[in-house]
């Protein structure tokens, strides 16, 4: 992991992430009055993992099985033409769908807001939720669209020259959030 040796330092370690998710799970329960009609939809890849973790937490606290799924937004991105076509992530909706539900979108990092905009478009094509909320592990600022998160694990002031990288046990073998200072190129 070369970026660790580089100008990277961990802003969140495993236990911090654990605590942040626990808090978000509690907040979701509180705000949605018991999460009765909630559907958690993660944005692949790491958002989907976080959504499953949140669902597990809620199940622990309340014994309630919140429907969880994933929503790939690749085909809805507005920056597709800036990079070569990329492989698609998975869209997997809960069997009962999202109509009339409160959808909580889950992503790892909230930055420009464009991913969330794409997710709102994608949601529009797969159903009609009663309300849509947004949960993110890290909010690093620099919004380019009028979008804000309802649940934030950590607000992280960054400069645009920095990169935020989220590692999760399921996909990366460990839990951490790294702040990487890009070398001036």
């Amino acid at each position, binding site marked *: 992991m070369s970026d660790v040796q580089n100008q990277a330092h961990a802003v969140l370690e495993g236990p911090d992430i654990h605590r942040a998710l626990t808090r978000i799970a509690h907040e979701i329960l509180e705000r949605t009055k018991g999460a009765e009609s909630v559907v958690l939809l993660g944005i692949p890849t790491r958002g989907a993992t976080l959504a499953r973790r949140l669902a597990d937490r809620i199940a622990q606290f309340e014994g309630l099985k919140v429907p969880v799924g994933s929503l790939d937004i690749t085909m*809805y991105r507005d920056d*597709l033409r800036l990079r*070569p076509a990329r492989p698609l*992530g998975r*869209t997997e909706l809960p069997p009962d769908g999202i109509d009339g539900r409160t959808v909580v979108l889950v992503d790892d990092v909230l930055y420009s807001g464009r991913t969330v905009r794409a997710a709102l478009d994608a949601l529009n094509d797969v159903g009609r939720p009663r309300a849509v909320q947004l949960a993110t592990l890290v909010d690093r600022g620099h919004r380019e669209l009028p979008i804000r998160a309802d649940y934030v694990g950590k607000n992280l002031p960054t400069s645009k020259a920095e990169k935020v990288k989220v590692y999760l046990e399921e996909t990366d073998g460990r839990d951490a959030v790294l702040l990487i200072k890009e070398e001036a190129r």
Partner: protein
Amino acid sequence: MRHLISAGELSRDDALLVLDTAEELARVSDRSIKKLPTLRGRTVVNLFYEDSTRTRISFEAAAKRLSADVINFSAKGSSVSKGESLKDTALTLEAMGADAVVIRHGASGAPHRLATWVRGSVVNAGDGTHEHPTQALLDAYSMRRRLGRLEGLKVAVVGDVLHSRVARSNVLLLHTLGAEVTLVAPPTLLPVSVETWPCQVSYDLDAVLPKADVVMMLRVQLERMNASYFPSAREYSRRYGLDRDRFARLHDDAIVMHPGPMNRGMEISAEVADSPRSTIVEQVGNGVTVRMAVLYLLLGGSEPAIGGTA
């Protein structure tokens, strides 16, 4: 610029990327709103020099589901029938700003030539007796969906290999993906150099069938009969047709494929074509999905993610 002209120019990773992308896109086909905004503002031209309604509609549906603008340009009733050259047509399409040209043409190699005259991506929708790469991709996709794998799969491709673009593309692609292809045909309908192809060859359908996981029947053009490739339709059907008796000799999980259109009663009997182990109808649906994947991977980004240079 990159194109999809031959199945041979797809690497294993490219081919799997198409199949995996199609797998995800298949989920879109199941929902009520099938349209994706991905190719909004892009123009796809269907340039068809041969009548092939099913292939054209398949590409058209694929492009429209990705919100591309589609222009259908068929040889009949256009300047093409007045003798305009392929090059002049290409320059016209170029001037219209075509981001991709899907071409079906009776001359082998026409897509290669087209690719030298247009800047957009060229997708080969069947050229002469050369290739039909999206058909091979949809066949591979259909096999993987039904049988769960491609690696090590035993595929018999039966019929007029000599004139078949489907056979050429399938041999190349399935070889890349690790399947074992056996071509089965009378010697007159095999190219003289077939032993240099990455596959097995047999003249004896009955010897091949019991081992096959997939039997792909090729359409036999009846005009071949007049050119003495075989003595009669009856004899062909008896030696190389897939009828009930032969079908019974397949193992239980084996599937039957046909790129269509079929000559029922000639290369395939009606009850085999309509059996649950035939994928012929789902091949059509899979065609749209796979072509969406191809168009997305060629046009969805700043540059194509698959394919070769012409």
